[in-house]
């Protein structure tokens, strides 16, 4: 698991927002802020964080669906950020994406078979004569009857559509798939089927998966390593084992405490994620962090290796043993009040 497949080098993405058509002042949403990260071949990297943390932006940057403001993305050592459109198109066969909403990611006027065949023909995966056969095999691979090739998306259920979306991603034999909230819109029993399917596919194709989800228990099941994002910055990167058994960053600990399926520390952090147009100085989490001290506002903390393979962006390493509720008792008296942005 040491061979690099994708590498973000100092990647940044700002989206411009104008407050009013008359105002000249331009503001930027800092969606992803100076991120260095390597994804290794065959692994599943889970990305977790609240809405507005930059998870989806990162996924789109990974396969260059959007252009970075700064920084570069390397795929198998080749810089895809500077590629021409033609070259990039060839590369796209190696990286695919699955979206949250299978209702809107399929063309309602194309049969399932045509939707799957389109990319196969474009990338010349098999000869024209074999396309039909190939599509039938794809459908049975994702657990659908090959007859579904004749059907339209509207006649399928949500789970079936998500299977089609997975089949379409697999159609071009990619080595990397970005799954952005791929199971979030599904009922839990359907979700279990799709997660099993993704696990199977990963195993027999040696796929690399960038698995983006807000659901911590789903990520724990799927991921080998986990990246915790907050306001576009990495808070913690470590093996799934370390993240879930021994989280070190206060934000990771707070997220796990808030998720209903984990038995952990009793704590709710206050407030909500601040506006990404004007992130706090220093550590972006400090405004909600129960351990924050004045020093946290000064410098942006770098990711530091606190244990083998576990990287944490927090200057307060001494807090490891301290519980969040201890820290709450000290700050005291702010219960039940949300601060206005």
């Amino acid at each position: 698991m040491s061979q690099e497949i994708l590498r973000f080098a100092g990647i940044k993405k700002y989206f411009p927002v104008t407050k009013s058509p008359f105002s000249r002042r331009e503001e930027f949403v800092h969606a992803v802020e100076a991120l260095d990260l390597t994804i290794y071949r065959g692994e599943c990297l889970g990305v977790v964080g609240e809405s507005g943390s930059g998870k989806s932006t990162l996924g789109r940057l990974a396969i260059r669906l959007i252009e970075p403001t700064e920084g570069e993305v390397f795929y198998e050592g080749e810089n895809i950020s500077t590629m021409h459109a033609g070259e990039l198109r060839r590369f796209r066969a190696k990286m695919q994406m699955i979206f949250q909403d299978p209702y809107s990611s399929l063309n309602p006027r194309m049969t399932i078979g045509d939707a799957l065949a389109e990319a196969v023909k474009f990338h010349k995966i098999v000869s024209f004569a074999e396309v039909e056969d190939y599509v039938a095999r794809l459908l049975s691979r994702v657990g659908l009857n090959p007859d579904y090739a004749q059907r339209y998306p509207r006649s399928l259920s949500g789970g079936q559509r998500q299977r089609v979306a997975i089949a379409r991603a697999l159609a071009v034999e990619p080595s990397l798939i970005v799954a952005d909230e791929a199971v979030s819109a599904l009922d839990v029993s359907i979700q279990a089927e799709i997660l099993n399917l993704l696990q199977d596919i990963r195993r027999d194709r040696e796929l690399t998966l960038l698995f983006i989800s807000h659901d911590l228990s789903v990520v724990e099941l799927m991921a080998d390593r986990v990246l915790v994002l907050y306001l576009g910055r990495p808070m913690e990167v470590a093996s799934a084992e370390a993240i879930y058994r021994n989280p070190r960053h206060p934000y990771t600990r707070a997220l796990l405490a808030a998720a209903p399926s984990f038995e952990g520390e009793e704590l709710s952090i206050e407030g909500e994620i601040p506006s990404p147009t004007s992130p706090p100085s220093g550590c972006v989490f400090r405004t909600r962090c129960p351990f924050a001290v004045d020093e946290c506002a000064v410098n942006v903390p770098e990711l530091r290796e606190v244990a083998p393979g576990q990287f944490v962006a927090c200057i307060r390493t001494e807090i490891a043993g301290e519980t969040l509720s201890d820290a709450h008792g000290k700050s005291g008296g702010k219960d039940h009040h949300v601060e206005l942005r």
Partner: protein
Amino acid sequence: MLTDPSRAATERDDGPNLLEVQDLRTYFATDERVLRAVDGVSLSVAAGEIMAIVGESGSGKTVTGMSIMRLLNPRTARFEGGSVQLRTRQGKVVDLLSLPEKEMRRIRGSEVSMIFQDPLTSLNPVFSIGDQIIEGILQHSEVSKADARLQAADLLSQVGLGEGKRLLMQYPHQLSGGMRQRVMIAIALSSNPQVLIADEPTTALDVTVQAQIVELLKRLARERGMGVIFVTHDLALVAKMADKVCVMYAGEVVEQGVAMEVFLRPQHPYTVALVGCIPHGPSEDRLTPIPGHAPDPLKGLVGCRFAERCQHALPKCVQGPIQLRAIEDRRAVRCVRVEELS
């Protein structure tokens, strides 16, 4: 009022019930056939208690909440039976299903309030937060506008929006999702309701904010002695926050009991299967999805509705109607084989 033995068993020792739903049947008329969205649901909420209704999409959990509020279009939805008995603040017991619409309008929002998943569509974008809370207060009580304004600010601080006064002048788009849901709760509380129905109130929110809203609802139920019906798809969340739970499948309650116990020790094969679908831990072994899919609600089903997906199903499961039976203290299950299986 308690006639059904299964319900007597699940409700011992609780305070007086504020709301009792008995054998509720809500059917929708489609072109030719009848869709039985809610088919014989009974449940109750006591003062200060949180009662959760859990189910997957199409199980009838939302329609149950909407039926209690009588918010369904009377042209398509019919009540085929049952009653919804509410103990009002004056101590009178009224059946919400048989009240004339005019009476119901007085009850709605004053004795029973409801909040929804998406607070942005529930709030009017062109009125300030203050206007919208004050409107509710003036509807249900005889106070001056100035007093209503003070009450509104007070309500906002009760739901954890400390800077209530400033917030009164703001508009929904200026608030975050969690704050909007707090405002919705403040509006729902403005008439001091006996019962609050919360339909997936935290589903659109981040986990950290979800935890805050859940804490808030728990505190409000306790402090005000308000009954809360919490409709959700999230069984793990229910185990953490609710007192009692009803698990619904295809329009019926299949299991009922103390929330944490149902989650830790489910008895009905559907509840067992549902718990098995929730990812827990980095398992090398696979999740066990439920085979097949939910039955067509337009088909008239005989016997257990889960039978065709149930690995323990026997011919007797589909031969006649199956009752929700009390199997132990505070637990009722709709399954003929539950004793042999457990």
